[in-house]
């Protein structure tokens, strides 16, 4: 009911297709994994067109199924190069580049990040200097730190890149602009003269992706290769300014909303594996004389896994909410109404950080809950983890994201303080003005919290967020009062500000989960999801009791009750645990885990898997003849 999949069933298309079969990737070297990925990507493009799949959602599912949720070398071509051409190229440029790129004569990537510069875009050092004599831009990587570093597909795959560089014309720097730069010779795929390009080497995961480096030495491109839909450089070097830059917010919101969805999916996969395995694994004894119980019957195991299961469901709803909101307001954006954009932008920044941090830690907890076998690559969790964990950093480093949300929160708080009303998710700040006079903490008014009512718990989270936003804003003001620099004061308050953002995001997640419950028509489904929602909310309180106690939102006695409720919910959810992960509906092929198989035949399949290990290729390993035997002979 909750995870309605596409009618087309890309799963079936891929599973039944012999072209997409290959050896278990865990046994392949990085070069081999890259090669497999390229092979599948090439096939994928042809099959997409063969099957006439053009809907973005369907393409996404098809792609993620072929690559089993892993990155692939054409990601940047499909996800950044083509869309950027569509949004930033002039019609003439689209004529020149779009169809060749669509037909993959041109494979492109998006080269923004440099070795020494990430989040702070204005700090990028690559230069593009306009030469009116030849009507060309001269691209340079003036320092080691300016070498483009990390772009996916750049290392080995692409023959073009959209390069972000500081534009210099008529002796003046005009800031960052995007340029289409050919980097490899069509036909031979050799780097062009003036271009140094290669793979950045092994990483924590992402084995199939050729993240690359790019160094340019006096590399010339025609004037027409600057993306000029907005800003322009005229033949004589005159610079024409763009109209507005708020529009780029839209893309960021969209990509970050994808990460929220990915947090939900990755955590769901890890939970599926850990919970199924915990039902198969037996260990020790709970009752003297009885057979070893399923480890899922231990309270500590339930305490590790069920809150994560609840979190996976919560994030699923949050992801869907952001996506829907984005689609709803992008209509307004096209009509020039940008009023809702700042809040959505601030909210997605924080939720991207909040969900990716939580899922990141949660995946690791799932792995550790599988004991030693979780550490084997056959469990599939190591792979989920290394594929997911960079999302804490890319598309906006999480701490920086939290501080962006905080900026919005402080701004809203300031508005409220000056007597204005704020709307949307931050409207709880309006309540602050009413108790402004109290010198004590905001929520000192006793909220009567009903611990078995999600709606009441939303109020508790709201009070906590309000208290932490207010505390951060006040601390910021105190710093401002005895420091000259705004930046310095901000920096000295940033730990408080991040806490405030986290509390805000936590509130939003509890609120959205709770709101979802009333939409579920099936009574049994609603009942079990209400339990999960309560668990999510109560567990969150038990992990952050300090905030709730300090603000006087909950008493010591209530905290004891919260902990007790959490434990009772664990026992209530236990009988439905496997059904709740089965509902995520991951196919075994997609799950890629011997421990998490649907049929639970774990041990025999671990043995089958291990036999294929590269170390087992020969009965006696060659190192015996090379090292062991000579040593034994000598001693």
């Amino acid at each position, binding site marked *: 009911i909750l995870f309605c999949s596409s009618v087309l069933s890309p799963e079936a298309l891929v599973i039944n297709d012999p072209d997409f079969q290959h050896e278990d990737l865990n046994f392949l070297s990085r070069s081999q994994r890259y090669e497999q990925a390229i092979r599948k990507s090439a096939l994928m493009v042809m099959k997409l067109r063969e099957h006439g799949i053009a809907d973005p959602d369907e393409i996404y599912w098809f792609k993620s199924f072929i690559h089993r949720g892993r990155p692939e070398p054409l990601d940047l071509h499909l996800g950044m190069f083509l869309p950027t051409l569509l949004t930033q190229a002039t019609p003439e440029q689209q004529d020149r580049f779009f169809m060749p790129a669509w037909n993959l004569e041109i*494979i492109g990537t998006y080269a923004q990040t440099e*070795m020494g510069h990430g989040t702070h875009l204005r*700090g990028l050092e690559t230069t593009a200097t306009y030469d009116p004599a030849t009507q060309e831009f001269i691209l340079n990587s003036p320092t080691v730190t300016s070498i483009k570093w990390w772009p996916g597909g750049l290392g080995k795959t692409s023959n073009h890149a959209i390069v972000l560089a500081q534009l210099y014309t008529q002796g003046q720097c005009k800031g960052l602009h995007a340029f289409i730069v050919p980097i490899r010779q069509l036909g031979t795929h050799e780097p062009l003269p003036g271009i140094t390009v290669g793979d950045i*080497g092994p990483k924590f995961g992402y084995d199939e992706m050729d993240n690359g480096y790019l160094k340019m030495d006096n590399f010339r491109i025609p004037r027409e290769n600057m993306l000029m839909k907005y800003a322009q450089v005229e033949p004589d070097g005159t610079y024409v300014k763009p109209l507005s830059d708020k529009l780029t917010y839209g893309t960021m919101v969209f990509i970050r909303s994808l990460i929220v969805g990915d947090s939900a999916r990755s955590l769901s996969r890890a939970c599926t594996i850990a919970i199924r395995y915990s039902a198969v*694994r037996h260990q*020790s004894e709970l009752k003297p004389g009885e057979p070893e119980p399923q480890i899922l019957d231990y309270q500590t195991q339930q305490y590790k896994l069920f809150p994560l299961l609840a979190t996976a469901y919560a994030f699923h709803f949050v992801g869907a909410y952001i996506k829907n909101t984005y689609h709803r307001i992008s209509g307004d954006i096209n009509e020039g109404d940008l009023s809702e954009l700042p809040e959505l932008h601030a909210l997605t920044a924080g939720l991207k950080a909040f969900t990716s941090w939580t899922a990141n830690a949660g995946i690791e907890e799932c792995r550790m809950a599988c004991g030693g076998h979780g550490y084997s690559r056959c469990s599939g969790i190591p792979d989920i983890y290394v594929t997911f964990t960079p999302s804490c950093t890319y598309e906006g480093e999480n701490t920086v994201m939290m501080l962006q949300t905080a900026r919005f929160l402080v701004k809203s708080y300031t508005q409220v303080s000056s007597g204005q009303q704020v709307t949307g998710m931050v409207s709880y700040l309006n309540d602050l003005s009413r108790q402004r006079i109290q010198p004590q903490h905001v929520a000192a008014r006793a909220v009567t919290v009903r611990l078995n009512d999600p709606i009441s718990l939303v109020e508790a989270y709201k009070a906590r967020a309000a208290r932490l936003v207010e505390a951060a804003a006040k601390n910021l003001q105190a710093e401002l009062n005895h420091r000259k620099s705004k930046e310095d004061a901000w920096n000295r308050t940033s730990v408080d500000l991040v806490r405030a953002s986290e509390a805000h995001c936590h509130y939003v997640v509890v609120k959205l989960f709770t709101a979802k419950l009333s939409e579920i028509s099936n009574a049994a489904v609603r009942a079990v999801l209400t339990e999960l929602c309560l668990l999510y909310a109560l567990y969150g309180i038990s992990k952050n009791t300090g905030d709730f*106690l300090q603000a006087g939102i909950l008493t010591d006695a209530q905290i004891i009750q919260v902990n007790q409720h959490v434990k009772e919910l664990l026992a209530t959810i236990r009988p439905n645990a496997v059904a709740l992960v089965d509902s995520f509906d991951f196919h075994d092929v997609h799950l890629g885990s011997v421990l998490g198989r649907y049929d639970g035949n774990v041990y025999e399949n671990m043995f089958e898997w291990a036999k294929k290990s590269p170390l087992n290729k020969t009965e*006696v390993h060659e190192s015996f003849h090379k090292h062991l035997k000579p040593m034994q002979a000598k001693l």
Partner: protein
Amino acid sequence: MALLEPSKYSQGSVLGSVNPDLASERQTASFSVEELTVWLDGSEEHTQKRRAVVEAIESDPVFSRENQYFQSQNERYEAAVRKAVHLQKKMHEMGWTESGPEFKYIYRAVSGDIAFLLHRVFIRSISVLGSDKQIAKWIPLATQHKLIGSYAQTELGHGTYLQGLETTAVFDITTQEFILNTPKISAMKWWPGDMGRSATHTVVFAQLYINGKCYGVHPFIVQIRSLRDHSLCPGITAGDIGPKMNFENVDNGYLMLQNVRIPRENMLNKFCEVQPDGTYVRQGSQKINYFTMTTVRISLISDEVIIPLMKACTIAIRYSVVRRQSKLKPGEQEAKILDYQTQQEKLLPQLAAAYAFHFINDYLQELFNRGYSEIQKKNFNTLPELHAFSSGFKAMVTQYSTSAVQICLQACGGHGYSSLSGLPSLYTRIIASCIYEGENTILLLQTARFLIKCFRAASAGQPVPPSVTYLAAVKPGKCPAKNKLEFLSPDIYTEAYQHMAARLVRSTAAKLQDLIQSGVKKHDAWNQCTVQLAQAAKAHCHYITVKNFAETVEKLKTEAGIQKIMKHLCDLFALHGIFSNAGVFLHDGYVSGAQMDMITASYLDLLAVIRKDAVPLVDAFDFTDKSLNSALGSYDGQVYQRLYEWAQKSPTNKQISPAYERYLKPLLHNTQSKL
């Protein structure tokens, strides 16, 4: 005391000079780095010895880890075997012995990247569990590497719970042999190191059967591979269990036994013996077994946990003063990322923890040595405390350090994810320590069992070990601190920790009691309290760590500069713990809401203070560049140049990838017709 010449650190460096951003950090150190290093090592002699060992190992090309990040599992395994074999030669050349003072530095110098680690466990298990006769027979063969041993306890379906093992050893009186079998797939031995490809022998733990009666789990020496051509012995199926998150150097293996016969003398029989007529005899105390586990847990804390944590801190902190990002003040240069409060708040508590754990390791060593001398006098009274402490601290230190290394990795932005940063491999290695030698949750529950027992005993006026007398002695009360500065007093925060730990143990004991009195069966009551029990055990270990850190600083009075900075780190470690676990301190009102705000303020103030000494504090760990093996963390801070040069060595850049000819070219040229 001469400072080390920087050139010593920059071996293999691409550039000679130190990055000015890093050099400037070293000029303002408030203490002598060399003195701190010596103090951490224990004495100047230790420091010299350690450096000599490291130098000898690192100057030998066989031990190079230069291309490690580019190697496949097969290559890593082969290199580890090559190194292990070469190490024997090296030790002989250098005159190092297993019992010598140099030995403990060898593992650090090779960064654990070596084979035959389980061979050592094989030797130790025979020494502990074998009779004198067995020791005389097997130990010389093993020490001379005439055979290579492993230690096969864990099974595919069974880990922590030893009684659940399913492998069988049936005594056959007629032939005076044991017949070993793997009766089903879940009984297959799984995970033992060195067993996948290298070992010729292994100690197998199996259920002993005599005349149809089961006598429980016992150890047996089983030959698994031919000493002549290394082929598998009859009845043996063995191999490598496949790729893991790390430990590519180790051939963790599986083993299946089908009617494998071994002579009666191969059962390790120091404590239990099967006589020729099938009579089973138990002799001596088995308590010593616990002592072996304790030894292993304590030694892994320093080798596998604290050193990697110190390395991760070194890499992340050095990189954070080289990396510049955004502006703190308009018009100025981009700021070093370590100048951001959020970055300090990520890294400096981890640095403080590395020091805290270094000292707790000293504490455990001392406890261990005392216990050991008692045990030699056949006094086993200290064993329960030693066992409970080694379990609890193993769990707490591994869990804390694992998340600390992860924080270090993620604090390095995108470059942290590059293998060349060294952080992914540190992380994937340290995380295994949360599981092996006892899964952490289970270990914490063992500690909790001990604490509950002691609490009950102490409440009843019975004697308990001094480390836990506080459990029954703490009275209800309020934290007396009146302003944020008073929270920099070790007495204030140590007492807060003590109060909190005692409260958690006490309330859990009461809860258990309530449940049992209301008619819940004992084991059910225990299971229903396990979440709280684990929390109480962690709280106890946290308290002891803070207390021990404070006492260590207290004893340091003579060395002013070092004492001062260590005091700051101790304060930071303690206040960070309160800040991050505010709820348990606020609960019952020991710390008030207003006091919590003071604690937060003091904690954040400390970050800025320690920031100034951050680089000298990691320099004092004294890791060479080769040992860090990190493009981000080297002594000279030439981060970007090194990253660029190392990347070019990647096989993906050297070999001609067949991918272009096979797939890309057709894609680039021929698709149009097909589309």
